[in-house]
């Protein structure tokens, strides 16, 4: 047993039992961050704050939401939006945050890709981040079912149908997932449980893993410079802050994080109060009707790119392409054969690969929403083929990259 002495004060009492000074040092004051990183590295903090907003607003919504197919729609649109004090505020915070969190995730992902932050020892950061992306996707989808509007119902129908596996006709599997032949009460209860318990738990665990994965390789920096963190930290602690290449997480980088968060929150609350409808599909304000198919069925904007990879092909080929799109980002650290973890602008053909991928995903996103007719189908098909092609050529174009 450890040696305990009579505590001088509360801090000392806690310190003897929980080692709070050590924790504070390791997690905050001597968690070293490179100095040369820009505001894009604050996206992690924005995501953490947004997740916090989702969690808190979600808890309030949970108090009044009814997971029953006859009551769900009105419990959201009438009880929460109109009867409960400030229910409208929590709902709009939740709805806007659910959409904005994906925008920030995509910026966070493309930042990682641009600066090569998935390479040379940082593979686990990337993989745990991709697991978080998948968990957030499942969380968003299950949450979208809950208001039981027209798009909830029909998106639920379309997405669960994917599990039939095209020609495999695994209809039994689809029915097992739904607990019924069509999305109905069992389906709603299951997705409710997934949305409020199982997936959030997984997300919290994964956030822990993602943060943990950063400890040893440290975060990358915008010059791709390999920093000797111990030597630089010594310099900092000796008082030469200006010449040290590293800074403390707290308060040094935290101050910058909070500055970016502050500016982000201006945009966020502007959306919540004055443009909340950007995140909510009007079709979902019609109650679910299993007898009336909407003219166009499409997912929320953040899933459109992968939906569009599914759509232009025949069923089986489409499903294979879709599965490819879901897993391929996980393999990025292994498909990128270059020895460099530097910004794309200083690399060879990868420079063009990055921008081509970004633009291609925006085109896929746009084509995923418009009706698949005429020129839009053609553009969608070529964009989907480009997406697959870009991933196939990635190992080849990076293999011959010289060390910079």
């Amino acid at each position, binding site marked *: 047993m450890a040696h305990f002495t009579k505590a001088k004060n509360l801090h000392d009492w806690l310190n003897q039992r929980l080692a709070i000074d050590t924790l504070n040092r390791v997690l905050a004051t001597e968690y070293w961050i490179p100095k040369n990183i820009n505001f894009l590295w604050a996206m992690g903090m924005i995501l953490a704050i947004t997740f916090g907003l989702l969690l808190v607003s979600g808890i309030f919504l949970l108090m009044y939401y009814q997971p029953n197919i006859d009551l769900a729609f009105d419990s959201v649109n009438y009880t929460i939006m109109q009867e409960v004090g400030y229910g409208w505020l929590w709902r709009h915070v939740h709805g806007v945050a659910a959409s904005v969190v994906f925008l920030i995730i995509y910026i966070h992902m493309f930042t990682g890709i641009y600066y090569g932050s998935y390479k040379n020892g940082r593979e686990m950061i990337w993989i745990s981040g991709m697991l978080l992306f998948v968990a957030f996707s499942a969380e968003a989808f299950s949450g979208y079912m809950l208001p039981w509007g027209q798009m909830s119902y029909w998106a639920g129908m379309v997405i669960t149908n994917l599990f039939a596996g095209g020609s495999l006709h695994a209809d039994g599997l689809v029915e097992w997932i739904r607990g019924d032949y069509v999305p109905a009460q069992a389906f709603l209860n299951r997705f409710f449980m997934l949305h409020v318990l199982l997936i959030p738990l997984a997300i919290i665990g994964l956030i822990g893993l993602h943060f943990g994965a950063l400890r040893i390789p440290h975060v990358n920096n915008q010059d791709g410079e390999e920093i000797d963190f111990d030597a630089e930290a010594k310099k900092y602690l000796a008082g030469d802050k200006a010449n040290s290449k590293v800074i403390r997480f707290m*308060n040094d980088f935290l*101050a910058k994080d909070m500055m970016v968060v502050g500016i982000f929150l201006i945009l966020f609350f502007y959306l919540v109060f004055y443009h909340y409808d950007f995140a909510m599909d009007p079709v979902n*304000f019609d109650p679910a009707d299993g007898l009336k198919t909407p003219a166009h069925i499409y997912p929320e904007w953040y899933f459109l790119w992968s939906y569009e990879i599914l759509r232009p092909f025949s069923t089986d080929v489409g499903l294979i392409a879709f599965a490819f799109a879901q897993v391929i980002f996980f393999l990025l650290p292994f498909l990128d054969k270059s020895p460099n973890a530097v910004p794309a602008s200083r690399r060879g053909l990868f420079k063009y690969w990055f921008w081509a991928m*970004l633009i291609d995903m925006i085109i896929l*996103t746009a084509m995923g*929403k418009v009706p698949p007719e005429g020129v839009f189908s053609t553009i969608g098909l070529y964009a989907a083929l480009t997406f697959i092609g870009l991933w196939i050529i990635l190992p080849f174009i990076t293999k011959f990259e010289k060390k910079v």
Partner: protein
Amino acid sequence: MKELFILAVVTVFTLVTYYLVEPFAHSQMHKHIESEGFAYKDLPALTKKGDATRGKDLVMGAGACTGCHSIEVAGLPAPMDPVTAAQSYGVNPPDLSNAGVVFDAKFLAALIKNPAHALMLEHKYNEKSGASYPMSQFYGAGGDMDQEVADMVAYLQSIAVKKEELTPNMAFEVACGRCHAIHYPYNLDGKLHAPWTQIGEKPTFKHKQDELAFETKVLDYQDALTKYLGTLPPDLSMYIRSRGEHYIKTFVEDPQAYLKGTAMPRVGVTAEAADKVIEHLENVGDSKRHKREEIGKYVMIYIIIFAIFAILWKKEVWRDLH
């Protein structure tokens, strides 16, 4: 400087994506229909000045309006209860007390002369189909027909409440309320109003039996309406969010422009009455809008101050780091 450049790149890509997914995609999915401002240009202008006194005689007599319509303000009750009326005509003929303020004068005149034409229902009621619109057309009382119609319109306008007195839910009841229900109660001036059914506001009942009797009447009415229109018109509780103001306004102006062949008639409301209907739908489906805007201001001020302090803190901390 470099960070501002990066911010600009991120912003541009975000806005392009937003533009493509929202305004662009919606322009491709839904054709845009411009409102003509409730001018009803296809209907002939009123050339005669109406005389309300003569109009009253026509409405009560030769015009035969009161055979089917009630005029509560003139002390004329409905000849049938709403359910029986709907079973006879398909839908309950409206009370005419406020028709003169809710409906456009040109539209009313055209409606009296040729209902199927004014309502844009000629695809359903024509010589070929053999069906005639339940409201019979006015063939004139023997004098100048345009003058007679103008007199009747003048009478309806004279008994209606003034424009300023028309409340949002009155406009809704007259224009939409005989076909569309709204199952959300709504607050107005501190009073909670009951849900609207096609036969009126649902009263509070002491006994379950009376409530069931009322609900049976609503169902009977809805059955008649469904038979008449081919489908039960949707509940409008959330229409302000699911369709939005622009859609609702242009839809009531010309339903055929959106849904060719629909049984939904052109409503014929004035621009002011249309605004009142929208206001009613907002009271029902978006009742916290004023609170949202009021609180939004304070939150924005708070968050801007927070951001300023965050920027100052960053400057303070980083002074030593450079």
